[in-house]
C-alpha cells in the first residue's frame, strides 16, 4: 500500500494534485502530536513526495516549525503550513525533535531533496537514504540515477541504491548490491553487510567475500589513521614543548609555570573571541587574530617574569624550578579569580570542524589537521627567528659565550629577556591550538608540563630538530600502543621507555655538541 502511494505520489503528483493535496493535509496534523506521531507523519510526507512537504520538513529540522494551541502548524514568518496563508502566531511554540524524529526526517528529506536542483543537496540526500534505506527507495533512486548529470553525486546514489536493494526482496539485485558495497570498502558498507548477513542465509558466501575485501582495505586505512592520530598527538606535544625547548633548551631555565603560559594563551584566545563577537565581519577571523594576541600576552608575562624574578636566579636552575612553581600557582589562581573556575567556551570556526576525506578514504578531523599544520608553521617560525634574525644571532652568541658576546657589545640582559619572552610567547601560541581540543580552564597547563619536559629531554636539550622528532615519536608510539594497552598503560609505557632511554643517552636523541649543553 505504502509502496503504491509512493510510486503514485512520485510519478503522478503533477497529474493528480487533488489526491496529493488531500494526503498532504492529512499527514500534517501528526506533526503537532507526540514524538511517535511526528515521526509517522514525517515518514508519510517523505513518501508522498509532495514538494510542499519540503519547507515543512526543513522548518521542522531547523526547529522553526511552530504549533499553536489548537493544533495548527506554522512555517517561519507565520504562514499556515496547510493552507499557505498568513496566520496568527500568538502563543505558538516550536515543535520539538528527538532522535527518532531526526532519523525519520533524514530519510524523508533525502527523498524529497533527490530532485533538488543543487548537486550538493542531492548528494546529501543520497547519503541520507543510504543511512535510512528501505525497499521503497529503490524505484526513486533508480529514477534519480537515470537523470543525474553529476558523476560524483551519481556514485553516491548508486551506493545508496545498493543499500536499499539489500533490504528489498529482489535476490538478483541483492547480489549486485553486495558486490558494489564490497567495492565501496567503507565502514558503513561493512555495517550494512553484517546486518544483511543474518537476514539472507542464501547469500552468506557472497557477503563474506565482500566483507573480507572491505576488511583488507580498512586495515590499511586504519594504519594510516593511527599514524595520523599519532602525528596529531605529536604535534600537540610539539607545540607545548617548543616554548620549553627555547627557555629550557637554550637558556637552561626550568620554568614550571610553562603550562600556565600555555593556559594564558588559551584565555587570550577566549578574550579575542569575545571581543570579536560583536563585530560580524571580524568574528570568523577571531582564531587567526588570537595567534599574535596570545603570543604577545604570554611573551609579556614571560618578559615580566624574567626581568622581575628569574634573572636573579641565573645559575641556580633548581631554585628557578621551585620559584616558577610558585609563580604557576599564582597565575592559576589569578586566572581563576578573573575568569571563574568554570570552563570557557572557545568555538571552532567552520573550517576547523568536521572530517576531511583524504584520497583512499582516510578520514582525518579538520581541527587536528590544522593543528599539525600550525605546529609545523610555529616550528619553522622558531627556526627562522633563531637562524635569520639579528635577535636570533645575538641569542646564539649569548648562549655560546656570554662574556665574549657582552664584550662584542651585545646587551646580554636584554637578549635574555627577549629569549625568555620569545619562548613564553610560543607557549602562548600553543594555547591557541589547545583551546581547540581541550578545556579552557585554569588547570589547562598542568596536564602538559611533564610531557613537555619529557619531549625536550628525550629529543635532546637545545636541539629543535630533537624536539620535533621527540614529539612526533612519542605521539605515534603512544597511539600505536593505545589499542593494545589502553590509554593509561600506553602512556605509562612511554614514560618508562623514555626514562630508560635517557639512562642510555643522557643527552637525548640529538645531543648538542660543544659547550652549550654543559650544565
Amino acid at each position, binding site marked *: 500500500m505504502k509502496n503504491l502511494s509512493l510510486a503514485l505520489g512520485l510519478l503522478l503528483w503533477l497529474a493528480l494534485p487533488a489526491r496529493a493535496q488531500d494526503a498532504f493535509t492529512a499527514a500534517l496534523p501528526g506533526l503537532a502530536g507526540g514524538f511517535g506521531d511526528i515521526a509517522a507523519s514525517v515518514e508519510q510526507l517523505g513518501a508522498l513526495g509532495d514538494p510542499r512537504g519540503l519547507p515543512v520538513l526543513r522548518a521542522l529540522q531547523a526547529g522553526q516549525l511552530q504549533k499553536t494551541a489548537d493544533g495548527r502548524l506554522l512555517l517561519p514568518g507565520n504562514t499556515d503550513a496547510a493552507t499557505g496563508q498568513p496566520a496568527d502566531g500568538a502563543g505558538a511554540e516550536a515543535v520539538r525533535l528527538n532522535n527518532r524524529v531526526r532519523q525519520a526526517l533524514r530519510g524523508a528529506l533525502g527523498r524529497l531533496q533527490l530532485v533538488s536542483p543543487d548537486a550538493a543537496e542531492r548528494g546529501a540526500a543520497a547519503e541520507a537514504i543510504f543511512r535510512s534505506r528501505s525497499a521503497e527507495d529503490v524505484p526513486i533512486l533508480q529514477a534519480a540515477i537515470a537523470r543525474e548529470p553529476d558523476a560524483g553525486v551519481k556514485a553516491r546514489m548508486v551506493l545508496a541504491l545498493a543499500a536499499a536493494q539489500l533490504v528489498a526482496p529482489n535476490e538478483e539485485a541483492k547480489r549486485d548490491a553486495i558486490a558494489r558495497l564490497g567495492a565501496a570498502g567503507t565502514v558503513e558498507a561493512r555495517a550494512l553487510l553484517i546486518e544483511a548477513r543474518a537476514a539472507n542465509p542464501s547469500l552468506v558466501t557472497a557477503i563474506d567475500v565482500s566483507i573480507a575485501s572491505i576488511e583488507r582495505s580498512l586495515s590499511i586505512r586504519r594504519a594510516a589513521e593511527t599514524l595520523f592520530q599519532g602525528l596529531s598527538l605529536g604535534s600537540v606535544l610539539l607545540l607545548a614543548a617548543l616554548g620549553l625547548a627555547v627557555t629550557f633548551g637554550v637558556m*637552561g631555565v626550568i620554568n614550571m609555570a610553562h603550562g600556565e603560559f600555555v593556559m594564558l594563551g588559551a584565555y587570550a584566545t577566549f578574550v579575542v573571541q569575545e571581543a570579536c563577537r560583536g563585530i560580524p565581519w571580524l568574528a570568523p577571523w577571531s582564531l587567526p587574530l588570537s595567534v599574535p594576541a596570545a603570543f604577545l600576552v604570554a611573551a609579556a608575562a614571560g618578559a615580566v617574569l624574567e626581568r622581575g624574578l628569574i634573572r636573579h636566579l641565573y645559575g641556580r*636552575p633548581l631554585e628557578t624550578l621551585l620559584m616558577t*612553581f610558585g609563580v604557576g600557582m599564582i597565575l592559576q589562581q589569578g586566572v581563576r579569580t578573573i575568569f571563574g573556575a568554570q570552563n570557557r567556551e572557545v568555538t571552532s570556526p567552520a573550517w576547523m570542524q568536521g572530517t576531511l576525506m583524504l584520497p583512499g578514504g582516510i578520514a582525518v578531523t579538520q581541527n587536528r589537521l590544522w593543528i599539525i599544520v600550525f605546529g609545523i608553521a610555529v616550528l619553522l617560525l622558531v627556526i627562522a627567528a633563531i637562524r635569520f634574525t639579528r635577535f636570533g644571532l645575538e641569542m646564539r652568541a649569548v648562549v655560546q659565550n656570554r662574556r665574549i658576546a657582552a664584550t662584542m657589545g651585545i646587551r646580554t640582559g636584554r637578549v635574555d629577556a627577549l629569549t625568555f619572552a620569545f619562548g613564553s610567547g610560543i607557549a602562548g601560541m600553543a594555547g591557541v591550538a589547545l583551546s581547540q581540543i581541550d578545556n579552557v580552564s585554569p588547570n589547562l597547563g598542568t596536564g602538559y608540563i611533564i610531557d613537555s619536559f619529557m619531549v625536550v629531554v628525550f629529543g635532546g636539550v637545545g636541539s629543535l630538530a630533537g624536539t620535533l622528532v621527540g614529539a612526533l615519536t612519542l605521539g605515534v608510539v603512544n597511539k600505536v600502543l593505545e589499542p593494545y594497552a589502553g590509554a593509561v598503560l600506553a602512556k*605509562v609505557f612511554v614514560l618508562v621507555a623514555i*626514562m630508560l632511554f635517557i639512562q642510555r643517552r643522557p643527552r637525548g636523541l640529538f645531543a648538542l655538541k660543544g659547550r652549550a649543553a654543559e650544565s
Partner: protein
Amino acid sequence: MTLRLVLVGAVLVLAMLPALNRLPADSALHVSDFIVSVTGKWITYAILALAIDLAWGYAGILSLGHGAFFALGGYAIGMHLMRLIGPRGVYGHPVLPDFMVFLGYQELPWYWLGFDHFPFAILMAVVVPGLLAGVVGYLAFRSRITGVYLSIITQALTYALMLAFFRNDMGFGGNNGFTDFKELLGMPLNTPTARSALFYASLLLLLGALWLCSWVARSKLGRVLVAIRDAESRVRFLGYDVTQHKLFVFVLSAMIAGLAGALYVPQVGIINPGEFSPGNSIEAVIWVAVGGRGTLVGALLGAFSVNALKTWLTTVAPDLWLFALGGLFVAVTLFLPRGLIGLFSKAQK
C-alpha cells in the same frame, strides 16, 4: 646552641600535645583532637622533608619524586590496614577487601600476600621504596645524570606511578585507593588512644630520623657527599666511587620517606594515587627550601611552617591562599636563599 634549645623545646611542646588533649574540654590548656591529628600529620611531612634534605641538601640530588616513595610506604601500610578490616567490609568477605569483591576478584592477588602481618607490611614500607630508589638511582647515577635531568626523570617516575595506580586493574583500589580503616595492632583507629599512639610513633621516628641523618651528615660519608654536591667530577677524580655514595644516600632517603608514608596513612585515614601527583613532591621540596636546605633542622621548620600556614589559610582565605603560598615560595627563593633557618643563624652572628 640557641637553635638546639629551641629544637628541644619544640619537641617537648609537641610531646605534650596528646596529653593536653586528654584534659577536660573547658580547660584553658585543652588541645582539640583536630590539633593533635593535624600535628601528627605534619610530623610525618617533616620526616619526608628530612629525607629530601638529606638527598638534596647534602648530596645535591634534587628528587622531584620523593612523594612516590612516601606514597609507596603509605600503600604498604594501607594494604595491611585493608587486610585487617577482614569480614567487617560492606560485602562481608572474609579475605578480600570490598573493592576487590566488587571488581570480581576471586582470590587475593599474589602481591597482597603477607600483608596481613604487621612486620611484613612495615618491612615492605621500607623495602619497596628502597628498591625502587635503588634501581632508578643506580641507572641514573651510573649514567651520570645529575641536576635538573635527574629532577625531571624522578618527576616522570612519580607521574607514571600515579597514572598506573589510578588504574583499577592494578588491584590497588584505583582512584579511591584505600579508606575506612578499622584498626591497627589491635587498636581501633578512630580513638584518642590510637591517635596519641600514632602521634608518639611519628615523633619517635622523627627524632630517630633526625639523629640518623645528622649522624650521616657528620660522618666522613657526609663530608664526601657535600663534596660531591659541590664538585662531583673532582671527587670522582680523587678516586671516590661517586655512584655508590649517591646511591646509598638516595636509597636511605627513600626508605625514610617510605616509613613516613607508613605513619601518615593511618593518621589521615586514606591513601590514594593523588599522593603520587608531581605537585605533592614539588611542594615537599619547597618545604625544605623554605626552611633552609642542608641543615636538617631547616627541613623540619619548613615542613611545619608551610603546612601550618596552608591549614590556616585554606580556612581563613579559601579564595586567596594560593596567592599567599605561591608568593611565599617566590619570596623565599628570591630573598632567603638559605631559608627561614638563615634568619636564625644571621641573628646568632
